[in-house]
Each structure stands twice: as structure tokens, then as C-alpha cells.
């Protein structure tokens, strides 16, 4: 990796200038009068690296993959202009429920993350946190040209150009903007990959965790969260 751009002027100091106030160590007075030490970074976040979870083999895994493919729960998280292409999928004209695609409101219950269009650095941080909280096996669909090469934002100062340097992508949908039909086709492609057992990007993320983290920290200047968010 080239020069670490995450090195900022406070790095040599002990205090973390970017630490959010709610994540600071503090003592809390409990109702019974005792004083409790709270260290949110240790208490509220996971301390372990994500691990590679090997798939089972044979017909069992094939059956489970079929179930995973036919029940895609999409995280309701829109990142760019493409997020407006998702609501039409729930309307009578496109009706994604027919294909087992449903929306969920929380990352803990979602399997598919649709990165819908350009991803600003600020949103990338939230997208990483949401992605790491999703239970494995999880899949990413990258919607629009912006996620492939930056699209019309290729020289923007605050959007990323290539999504797969920061998060593992299963399916790309090219276009600016792709219509909802294209998104449905993307879901169909993702189903094919899952049924063929080729959608193991969550394990790829765990294997190359250090590489992804280095890339992410290079672009996110105020990294005020632990490395393991899940």
C-alpha cells in the first residue's frame, strides 16, 4: 500500500480528537448508589475479528443456498440518487415481493445491501458499519456506474470511485441510473450466484479483512469507531 493517508496531525497525541462524546470512557451512578465504569468502545462493540465461516458441503448446502436465494431481505439504506429506484420495486408495476425480495429496516435482519449509486466518504463510514452488522452470508449489489468507476462523480473530492476496494461486491448493475427492471435483473443474477454457491463474499471480506480496513482507513479521515463493528 502506498502512503497511509489516514495519518493525521493528532496521531502522535494520546487523546483521540475524533472520538464521539458518547463513546468516551465514563463512570455512571447506578440507581443503587454504586458507581459503574463504562467503556463504550469495549462494552458496546465486538472485540473479535470476523471469521471465515466455511459453508457446509453437498445437498444440505445446496438446499440452504436455495432458501437463501429465494428469501432476500434488503436493507432499507439508500446511499445515492439510486435509492429512488428502490421504492418503485414495492409498487404494483414491479412488485419485487413476487421474487422473495423483501425490505427490512435493520441490518441485523438483512442479507442484501444495495449500494444505490454514489457513495460519499461520510456515507461510506455508515455503510461499512451497517454491512459489518449484517449476519453472514450477506451480499452486496452495487447499483449504477458510480459504484464501478465513480461515474459522473469520478473527480469529486468526497465520493469514492471504486466500491470494491472498500466492500466486497457480488453483483454490479451498470447504468446511470439503471431502471427498476435492471435492479430486478440484478436480484435474479444474485439468486443464480447464490444457488451456484458462488456468493461467498462475506468470507472473502473476512479473509482479506486487513486489506479492506487499510483501504477504508485511507479514505475515512475521522475513524472514530472500533475496527470490528459487527
Amino acid at each position, binding site marked *: 500500500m502506498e502512503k497511509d493517508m489516514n495519518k493525521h496531525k493528532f496521531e502522535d497525541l494520546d487523546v483521540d480528537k475524533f472520538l464521539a462524546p458518547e463513546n468516551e470512557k465514563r463512570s455512571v451512578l447506578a440507581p443503587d448508589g454504586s458507581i459503574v465504569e463504562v467503556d463504550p468502545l469495549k462494552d458496546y462493540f465486538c472485540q473479535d475479528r470476523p471469521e471465515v465461516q466455511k459453508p457446509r458441503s453437498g445437498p444440505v448446502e445446496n438446499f440452504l443456498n436455495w*432458501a437463501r436465494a*429465494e*428469501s432476500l431481505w434488503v436493507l432499507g439504506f439508500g446511499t445515492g440518487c439510486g435509492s429512488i429506484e428502490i421504492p418503485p420495486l414495492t409498487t*404494483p408495476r414491479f412488485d419485487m415481493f413476487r421474487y*422473495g425480495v423483501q425490505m427490512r*429496516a*435493520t441490518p*441485523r*435482519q438483512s442479507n442484501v445491501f444495495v449500494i444505490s449509486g454514489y457513495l460519499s466518504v461520510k456515507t461510506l463510514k455508515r455503510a461499512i458499519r451497517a454491512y459489518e452488522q449484517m*449476519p453472514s452470508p450477506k451480499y452486496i449489489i452495487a447499483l449504477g456506474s458510480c459504484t464501478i468507476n465513480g461515474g459522473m462523480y469520478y473527480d469529486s473530492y468526497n465520493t469514492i470511485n471504486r466500491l470494491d476496494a472498500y466492500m466486497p461486491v457480488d453483483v454490479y448493475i451498470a447504468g446511470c441510473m439503471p431502471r427498476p427492471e435492471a435492479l430486478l435483473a440484478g436480484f435474479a443474477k444474485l439468486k443464480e450466484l447464490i444457488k451456484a454457491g458462488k456468493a461467498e463474499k462475506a468470507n472473502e471480506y473476512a479473509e482479506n479483512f486487513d486489506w479492506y480496513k487499510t483501504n477504508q482507513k485511507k479514505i475515512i479521515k475521522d475513524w472514530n469507531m472500533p475496527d470490528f463493528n459487527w
Partner: protein
Amino acid sequence: MDYSITKFLWTLLGLFIVLNWGMLMSSTMRRIGARVAGRYGIPWYQPWIDLVKLYSLRTHLTHGTMFYIGPVFRLMGGVGIFLFLPMVYGNPHWSNYSFSGDLVLILYFQFFGMLGMALGAGEGGQPFSAIGISRGLSQFATIEVPMTLAVISIAIQYQTLSISDIVAAQQGGFMTWTLWTNPLATGAAMLSLLGAFGHSPFNLVKAPNEIPIGPPTEYHGTFLGVLRTNGAILHVAEAALFMNLFFGGAGSWFELIIKTFLIYFWSVFVGTVFPRFRIEQSVRWFLKVPTILGILAIIIFL
């Protein structure tokens, strides 16, 4: 008083039928909702696929002991109602263990699951869970008022708390149902049922799009699978409870399926028509008309 292994196996088979009927019923209702919106909706077998997928997820993380036990408590609430409820009247195989528990126990089981879930979801630490729990418990406290009044009313009417005896008293034709002999109690209970099923306008506990998904925000994978299993059982069990109390019970599984479907459809029908209440609106709503109906239902029997 039959506690033999055969009885236990029959009860398990009944639970299996109820679970599958509950899932089919939920997908049918979602399809009906979709047709109202002009869509086709999910395939009828979608709940089973969702369940297999939830149980097959690889990541499971916990926030503590109670986080594990919460869904188990919730499942116990649904199974508990099922266990002490006669499913098919007059058939020893399908009357479960209704001879060992009465109406009061069932009312307790209704609340039991919610309390367990509140403790479990509270340990998840997610703020939206806490909001969902406070809404759920305060709303359910007011749902219980008209429901309990109605139960007291029919207990006075039939001079018993045993569900089997209440069903037995309603045999003898359509006009002997509690629906006709005690319409005030039936009205109060059917209005409180709207809240118990948690469809719109009383779906502010889970409130998708508002507080992400309420108490189960942190639940995933197998935990959520257990919760959904319970949801399927609980919907049929609650509908069967109301069928036994107010609509003459069921003489066969076919009758049970028709009646539970219609009772559940009542809450879906209202939910498709009316939008969501806020918490203070729903609490006040339950304490007005349904509670007055419940009090009147008791007064006329005094």
C-alpha cells in the same frame, strides 16, 4: 386426566398442524393485503423459505443470557396458549391439556411472552427496542382491560372458567354462541383483539419505517426464526381462543381453519382500511368504547 405419551404425541402433531396453518394464514393475509394494493404479493410458501433461511444463517451474536432466553419465553407464551386450549371440541386427541388449565392461565400466558421478550430485547441495548418495549407494554396493559372485562363477563354468564365447559355450553346451534347470548362481551373482546394481533392501526409496537422494527431490532438468524415460529403459532392460538370463547368452538379441523381465518381476517380487514395510531391515541381508544362495552357486559349480569 390423561398424561400418557400418546396424548403428548397427539398434542405435538396438533402443534405442527397449527404452526403450518399459521404460516399459510400469514402468507394468505399478506397476499390479500397485496391485492388491495394492486400487487401479487409474496408466494404462498414464502414464510417457510424465510424460516429455513433464518435458521441457516451463519453469524450469531449475543448480548447476554436474557437475549438468548427472550425468544424462548416468547415461544413459550404461544405454545402455552396452545397447550391449554381445546382445539377441536369433543375430540380427546385434539383437546390438548385443556383439563389442567383454565382461562386465567391463558390470560397469563398472553402476557408472559411479552414480558420475556421485553427483558430479552432490553438486553440488546438498541434504543429502538426500548421504545418498542415501552409502547408494547403500555398498549398491552390497556388491551388487557376490555379483554379481562369480557372474560369476567362470560365467566359470570357460564359460572365457570374452564374453556371446555364454556365451549360445551355453546353447543346446540348457531344462536347459542356467546356472540348472540352475550354480544357486549363479544364486542369488547373483538375490539381488544385488534390490538392483540398488532395489525394497523395498532402496529405501533413494531412500527416498520418508524422505529426500525421495534423490540426485535437486534434479533437475527435463529433468534428471529424462533420469534417468527411463535408468531405463526400465536396467531392461530389466539384466534382459536376467541373461537372457543365467543364463536362456539370447532367440531373439526376444517371448522377451526374457517373460523380462525375469519377471526384473523377481522384484524387484517381493519388494518387494511385504517392507518397507524400513535401510542397515546391507541391507549385512549382502548380505554373508551371497548372498556365501556366490557363494563356494561358485566353490569347486565349482576
